[in-house]
């Protein structure tokens, strides 16, 4: 028998393999652990953003107070104001939207003043109550910018908008255009739709501007018969009803209808289509929203006066910023206006503009 029957085989790989297995499994488990930790953290990191809203600290807070009918127009102004404000990390609070209840302009103005906002952009009614609140705001150090309708007697810092006289002249140019369409221009009846609450003075400025313009530029034309029609905007849907009523009585139907805001324009346009009076009454609208541009393009509306809402919004914020920084600002900041006939409307629609 062989003396060395037992062969002793050293098994180095045994220890090595065992160690390798342990190392590998630990490695795997650690990878899984780290991976899961990353997943957890990413899940958790997503949370605070949601929880705490946008983690923003605004440097300023302006209240934007515009109620009333003309939503498209004011929405455009608001968007422009927000864009401008965002540059300075200022929050524009659309106070009408922020409060669930149906607050009037002056109520909102009161809330804004009591809330001690940093600035107020106001485009609402221009009655005494509003003036009083504006004065109170200014006395408390809150800058106030008025839009569209000015209260010159108030302590407001600035007015951004179109001068009513200027506006009247622009409408006058359109009236003259329409009159010159006739071979033998006759005396025209022109209805001017204004808010019932608008001060008489403002309406008078417009009629005066129209008369001045035609007398100056078209002395050969007979001056049109200008009628101020106060539209009731206080009750819900009352604007639409008021305007529709104008078309029911044929005898009172004007030749030309001047709409001083976009809602009037849209209501008039709908009524004229429904009552089949297209061509009988020429509408000169206000604002260049898409639906109005389309109507102009179809020649249902003769033309529309486009006010640059973007400029209006931007200017108002700039005025407030200036006031906060320096303590004063321009008391009047004009806004560009443009007459859009059906050719221009076509071009604008083709460019995809007119959504303001």
């Amino acid at each position: 028998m062989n003396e060395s029957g037992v062969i002793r085989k050293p098994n180095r790989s045994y220890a090595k393999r065992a160690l390798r297995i342990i190392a590998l499994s630990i490695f795997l488990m650690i990878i899984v652990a780290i991976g899961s930790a990353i997943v957890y953290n990413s899940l958790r990191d997503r949370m605070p953003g949601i929880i705490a809203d946008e983690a923003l600290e605004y440097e300023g807070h302006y209240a934007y107070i515009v109620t009333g009918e003309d939503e498209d127009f004011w929405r455009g102004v608001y968007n422009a104001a927000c864009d401008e404000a965002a540059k300075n990390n200022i929050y524009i609070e659309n106070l009408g939207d922020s409060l669930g209840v149906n607050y009037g302009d002056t109520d909102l103005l009161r809330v804004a003043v009591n809330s001690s906002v940093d600035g107020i952009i106001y485009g609402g009614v221009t009655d005494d109550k509003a003036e009083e609140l504006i004065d109170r705001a200014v006395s408390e150090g809150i800058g106030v910018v008025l839009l569209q309708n000015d209260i010159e007697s108030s302590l407001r810092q600035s007015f951004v908008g179109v001068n009513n006289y200027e506006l009247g002249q622009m409408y006058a140019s359109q009236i003259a255009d329409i009159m010159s369409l006739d071979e033998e221009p006759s005396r025209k009846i022109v209805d001017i739709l204004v808010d019932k609450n608008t001060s008489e003075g403002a309406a008078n400025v417009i009629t005066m501007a129209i008369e001045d313009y035609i007398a100056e530029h078209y002395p050969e034309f007979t001056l049109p018969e200008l009628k101020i029609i106060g539209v009731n905007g206080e009750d819900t849907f009352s604007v639409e009803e008021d305007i529709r009523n104008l078309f029911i009585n044929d005898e009172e139907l004007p030749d030309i209808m001047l709409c001083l805001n976009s809602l009037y324009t849209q209501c008039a346009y709908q009524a004229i289509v429904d009552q089949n009076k297209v061509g009988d009454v020429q509408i000169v609208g206000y604002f260049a929203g898409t639906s109005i541009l389309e109507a102009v393009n179809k020649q249902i509306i003769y033309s529309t006066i486009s006010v640059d809402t973007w400029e209006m919004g931007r200017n108002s914020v700039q005025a407030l910023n200036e006031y906060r920084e320096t303590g004063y600002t321009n008391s009047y900041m004009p806004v560009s206006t443009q007459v859009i006939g059906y050719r221009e409307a076509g071009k604008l629609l083709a460019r995809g503009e007119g959504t303001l």
Partner: protein
Amino acid sequence: MIERLWNRTSIQGKLMLAFFIPIAIILVMNVYMYMNVNSMIARIDEVYDNNVRLNDLAENLTILHNSMKEYLENKGTSALNAYYKADQDYRNSVNDIGNSYNGTMAVMQKNILNQSDKYLKVVDETVQAKRGRNVEKYRSNFEEAQVMYADLQNCIYFLNNEQFKVNTDNYYILLSSLRYMEIISIVILIIIGMVNIVALFLLTRSMTRPLTELSKAADKVAGGDFNVTIVNPEGEDEIGRVSRAFAGMVDSMQRYIEEIRESMLRESRMKESELLMQNKMREAELRTLQAQINPHFLFNTLNAGAQLAMMEDADRTTEFIQNMADFFRYNIKSMDKDVSLSEELELVDKYIYILNVRFDGEIHYHKDIDERLNEVRVPGMILQPIVENAVNYGIRDIDREGHIYLKTYRAGDLVFISISDNGIGMSEEKIDKILSGEGVTADPAKNDSNGIGLGNVIERIRIFTGRDNVMDIISEGKDKGTEFIIKVPMHV
């Protein structure tokens, strides 16, 4: 270094390590996941916290306003106290809201805080005016406070509502995240568990592999194959030690087996030579015994034959000579080999005949033979010497008639051959001496003997049968005769 450490660790230690590490990792993962889920649940709990705070605020505002109103109505002390308390409560809940918001919510919150300040001031002025009986002022102030109160409630309500919407969204997001986490946790646990199982399986297999190999080696060794391989004999753990011990054991087993084999070989060789020697000795002994046959006897008988022949030239002489010749032939022939019992009995017949011729019929010979035992093998020349002894020492010198009795019988496996006489008998001493082999050598020179003593006979029977107790000698005393009983096995 780690490898050496691993080698040195006991199996218990290795297993502990193999179990401990995964369990530790699973434990840590579990704790981590538990904490995550926990913090998430805590967050869910917090979601509606600010709603609760806003509700408190609105409630306190109402209490404050009503208490002011009550005081204005009755101007009571308790109403005033209630007002002060409500005022403090409201201030506290305003502080509670603190700066818990940012973004647009923060703006709304700021509005509420500022309005609250102004409202509190107006309310305070109202109460003071009432105390100072400034009727106009407190009335107008109360109107203002009413309006501000409504504004504040509206603002709080709106913020609360907005907050609730956001919170509800958050709540659902958190809830779905929680579900996500649960699923991830389960998946992770499953993955880690599976990795653990695989690792443990591989690890324990790598640990038990040497054991498996060892058991295979043990099987091989059990089957007689010592050419085995021992894996990892230098490991310091239990398996390593067992492996080494096993290797040592196999080595020493091999050595012992070798030694035993050698000693057995030696022994068998020795036994062989011993047997050979014994044979030789027996042969020598036999030859020595054969050499003891006395030629005198031959001469005396021959003399007797001659005398007979001289006296009568007849058949008897012929017979006598014939018997003589047979006797000697047998004598020479049978000394060194075994014969059948019948041959031996025949020889006794011839011997008795010869003696009776010699002593003129003095010997009365009787036999009682069991014929069935005739073929039993016995050493040659065993009965004649006993009969001779019986004649010479038993009945020769007695005055009465001498009788010799021969009887064969069987008891069990033994065949008994009894030779008895009615002679002078034998003393106990003599019997002992004969049986022990002392002083029994016949002296052929003195006696009419064929030279084969009783000792020789006994010895030969013993060698032949391999037994010690082969003969009994019975004598009941003087003149009572002697009986020799030979005992041989049926089959040798």
